[in-house]
């Protein structure tokens, strides 16, 4: 069992947890969302700043467990500076990994540190933790984009 546990709590995850990247709420931003994991209460407030079809910044404030915290940090690393389309593809890849019940082999080229979450997919109760900030980011990005269209 300890092997399974180590597989869940990979060093990379614990590092991101202890030293989260891009954490804190920053300006400018086009949209801000607040997402909650209703079952456990983990929360994230997340802002997106888009410019010229590129994810210029993702900033966030969050409370939660190591998995949800580390995953926000990895998300920010992965999408900041990427074209929105490409970021969405990364999102999709991460989602598939999480929903794959441990059967999906992660693509390190796309997910970089995100591959450390492969072990999480085997713990259904923790998948929601890992996805919290990713869902928030998708939601915020959709809002920012529709802002752009209507304004």
């Amino acid at each position: 069992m300890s092997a399974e546990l180590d597989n869940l709590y990979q060093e990379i995850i614990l590092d991101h947890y202890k030293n989260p990247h891009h954490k804190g709420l920053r300006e400018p931003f086009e949209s801000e969302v607040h997402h909650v994991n209703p079952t456990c209460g983990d929360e994230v407030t997340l802002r997106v700043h888009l410019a010229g079809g590129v994810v210029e910044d993702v900033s966030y404030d969050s409370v939660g467990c190591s998995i949800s915290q580390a995953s926000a940090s990895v998300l920010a690393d992965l999408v900041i500076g990427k074209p929105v389309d490409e970021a969405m593809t990364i999102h999709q890849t991460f989602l598939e990994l999480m929903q794959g019940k441990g059967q999906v082999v992660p693509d390190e080229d796309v997910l970089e540190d995100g591959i450390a979450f492969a072990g999480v997919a085997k713990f259904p109760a923790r998948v929601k933790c890992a996805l919290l900030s990713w869902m928030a980011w998708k939601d915020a990005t959709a809002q920012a984009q529709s802002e752009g269209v209507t304004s």
Partner: protein
Amino acid sequence: MEGLLPDLDVIRKDFPILERVLAGGQPLVYLDSANTSQKPQIVIDTMVDHLERHNANIARAMHQLGAESTEAYESARDKVAAFLNAPSRNEVIFTKNATEALNLLARTIDLGPGDNVVITEMEHHSNIVSWQLACERSGAELRWFGLTDGGELDLGNADRLIDEHTKVVAFTWVSNMLGTINPVVDLVARAKAFGALSVIDASQAAPQLPVDVQAVGCDFLVFTGHKVCGPTGIGVLWGREALLNELPPFHGGGEMIETVTMARSTYAKVPHRFEAGTPPIVEAVGLGAAVDYLGHIGLDAIHTHEQTITRYALEGLQSIPGLSVMGPLDATQRGGAISFELEGVHPHDIAQVLDSRGVAVRAGHHCAKPAHARFGVQSSTRMSSYLYTTPAEIDALVEALHHTRSYFKVG
């Protein structure tokens, strides 16, 4: 007999209660399945396995038992979604029974003075009283389709009943008293034409014919677990996801929330939105096993079996002097519940004599008083078959009815 389920003997072995011997050494002839169905061993065993090995609360629990229990509960949702051909698993809400599902809708659909709700005279009380109460609370008007002498919906004045002020059209798919199968696709279309919500009570349909919510095109549909070989304590509300998410919350409590402060709360989306508190976990798991069991036998095959038994029963019953069957007489146009009167003997007394011969039927108004009143009777006797019913059991019923007549010295 052509049309019976091929392995009827084997199927009967799946139901332990069918081996029950009653008072006086009488074998059980269970003809009360429209009231509640019997349970196959696989449903009972699945529940026992859950209670003995996987029991834990769901969603909230982070440990292995919690994960197993959640997985079992949520996969029951998948099974029910497949059973109904629902576009999304989120559309399947577990309730306590069909009655709660109907009341949930009657409590949360917004109604007001000037609005109207259309039901029918052949509804089960659960699909009448729930809307009566909703209309009383809101000031909306309750209207209903009457019945023809043949026991069908009288659609003659449909164009006057359903109008631009109609908010809900709620009707049963199969009548639990008359057996009538209603033209659900047509009724849904009539509701839709006026922008009204359609609510189908499939409590008697789900056990015996294929239910495909996408093919029917309705907005909401309910059924109850204990009539589809599942346990008591579990029912299903299906609804279109967008519509369900627009409804205000029903019960407030655990799991239906997004966040709670003392001052105010926000609510989760479906299905959790309407599953406040610890849900009927082992019951949902049992229901999942039940719909799997039915799916394995095949709803088409079950439907054919029911029609075959029903045809045979209609013939046998009509051979009894003084007996008159209520509702459609064509087995292909009806479900497997057959209510009848026997001249000179009250339904209670019929049921009592039948019971002394091990034949279990229902006597009374079957929670359908208005349909009885429509036909000028206060109560009736009802036999209802299911996938385990044999022609020999129908013979036993017919013979017991002959005996009843001679016992009460009628005719």
